[in-house]
């Protein structure tokens, strides 16, 4: 790491603008990627990022050095994104869905042939509830009971929404894979 995390935090606590900018420069990219995952369009993602950084700078005093800074920043961004989604009322109508597992085994699964951009688009194309719960469960690593608490839904809803998200993504992956394989073949020969 080319920067001193402690110094950076200290500077931000002192409301030092240079430190604030440096924090933004260091973590802005990663946090923006999170915002993109939780939102439907870039404008919303930018709004969330902006709000999140304001929150970060305002609440940097509550950051405790016993956990990595990046975890804390990510959690602030995720919470801001969830607030944003609540305001957009995306999370209002989350209901149990009957989903049948498509039967694909985990072991056969690979994302190796996909660009990050493609995967990002797939997530963003999910229905809002599915998108959020997929992000929280699969990528952020929250448990269903935690997600239920965060979103004010039942654990069952969280599970069924996630299952649906997973099925939808699987379908998208299968669909994309066919095209990808073809294109790869063309490039190779």
């Amino acid at each position, binding site marked *: 790491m080319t920067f001193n995390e402690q110094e950076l935090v200290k500077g931000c606590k002192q*409301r030092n*603008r240079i430190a*604030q*900018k440096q924090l*933004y420069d260091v973590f*802005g*990219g*990663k946090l*923006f*990627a999170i915002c*993109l*995952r939780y939102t439907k369009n870039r404008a919303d993602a*930018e709004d969330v*990022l*902006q709000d999140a*950084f*304001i929150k970060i*700078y305002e609440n940097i*005093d*509550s*950051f*405790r*050095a*016993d956990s990595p800074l990046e975890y804390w920043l990510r959690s602030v961004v995720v919470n801001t994104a969830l607030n944003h989604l609540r305001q957009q009322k995306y999370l209002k109508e989350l209901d149990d869905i009957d989903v049948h597992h498509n039967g694909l085994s*985990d*072991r*056969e*699964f*690979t*994302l*190796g*042939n*996909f*660009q*990050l951009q493609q*995967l*990002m688009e797939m997530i963003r194309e999910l229905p809002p509830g599915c998108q959020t719960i997929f992000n929280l*469960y*699969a*990528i952020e*690593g929250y448990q269903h009971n935690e997600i239920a608490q965060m979103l004010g839904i039942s654990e069952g809803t969280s599970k069924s929404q996630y299952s649906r998200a*997973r099925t939808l993504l699987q379908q998208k992956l299968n669909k994309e894979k066919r095209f990808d394989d073809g294109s790869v073949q063309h490039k190779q020969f």
Partner: protein
Amino acid sequence: MMDPSNINNFEDQWKKAFQEASETPPPSVWEGIEARLNGEQEKVIPLWWQSPKIWYAAASIAALLLVGAGFWLSGNNGGGKPQVAVSTESILKSEGKRSNAQESLPLAAESPTTEKLATTGESNVVRESKTASSKSKAPAVAESKVEIAATDHVNAADVKHENAFAETKNTAQDQSLDNTQPVEIAAAKVAGNGDAAAPTVENQAISAQLLASLPYSDLDVYVQKRHVFFRPEIRIEEPVKEKKPKEYYAGLGVMPASFNPDVQLKEAPMAFSTQSVSQRRATTGSSEARASYAVQTQGGVRLSKHWSVETGISYLRGNSAYEGGGYVLNAYSNLSSNVLENALAGLNSSANSPAADKAAGFNNGALYIDVAKKVSNNYQYLQLPVQAGFTLNPDKKFSYSVLGGMMANFFLVNELESASGDIIRTTANDDIYRSMNWAATTGLRLNYKLSSNWGANLTGSYQRAVSSGFRSNQSLDSHPYLYGVSWSVRYSF
């Protein structure tokens, strides 16, 4: 492209894919953040300022001030006596001409808070302090302060009763008063023909109506609430405190040293000058260091991570030799004296001086023997150093300290070998040497930590006297200096 390296689980693959995902946000985002931060900075308001409680408190204080000012001003008007000023609006109207004031009927005007009575017409004002007029038939009963104010210039007299009922049936205004209340009565006698006009009286005193409604008590006291945001840092400091170096230490050591008293003759002593040998080696003798040692005790305190102050008591045995060629010999008495002892003797006129016999008897018939001879010249001092130390690597196994300070050298004994081989012993009581002289000291110390409490030190030090060791410096001067290497052990607690 994603690296699927051994991760087959659906969630793990997605997690892995987005773990390091990054996309540069457009510059407009930071511009927006900065604009918001700037906006917030401009309207930075302390937290306490946002609290409504502070406004309640401010309002309370303002109310108190207002009430206080009201009392103060009204107190001034009333010559210090409590009173209630008359309200502004006089509602009285004259009902017509009256030929006699005594027949005129005062009109009472009622308002929710005040009752006023006024008479119109030209009036003579008579102030009476106590009594009620015999004509008074209807006393005014007042539960609170009552004042009837009248002025010479005003054609009306207003009477105000607060929470009181006042009734006048008489033509003249006479009041009987409640004994318990301080009261001023101003009765206005109306004389002559009254004016038909019903003037509206503008009272110049302060309005009391406002004051009456203000709270006099039950003001709540609000305490400012502080928000402390730095609790985590307190936790961080705790382990630092545990690691904090030991505050005090004591040490014991021994220092082999090279001590040189650097005795100089400023002028030839009498016996030598009479021998006209002042130009010879005898008067240009020099001191030479010999093996010396000091036994040292130290006590110190660490002021901060790097800085420490220490003191102690040392016993210094400083051995040296003086080489001054030649000595004088009395041809008749066989007394001899080398240049140093002769000079030493010359410093003290006391006959009891240990070198007194070396001073006399060389004026006549003495011979100068020009032989280079070394005589021993040994000193004993008690030393009291005060030194500051700056330590590098203070908490490591090896650390280094740079020392510097002053040292008080208390003279104990000087033993000078005479030309004949006798020892001339001079003590502090002989008033030859200063009982105390100052030396500057500096050194470099290597500390080795043996355990958490014990340590070993190796200190190289240099001391040099800044004042002469001799009480009188007429012919002798001495600025002892010393190089030494001290070995010591230290216990920290």
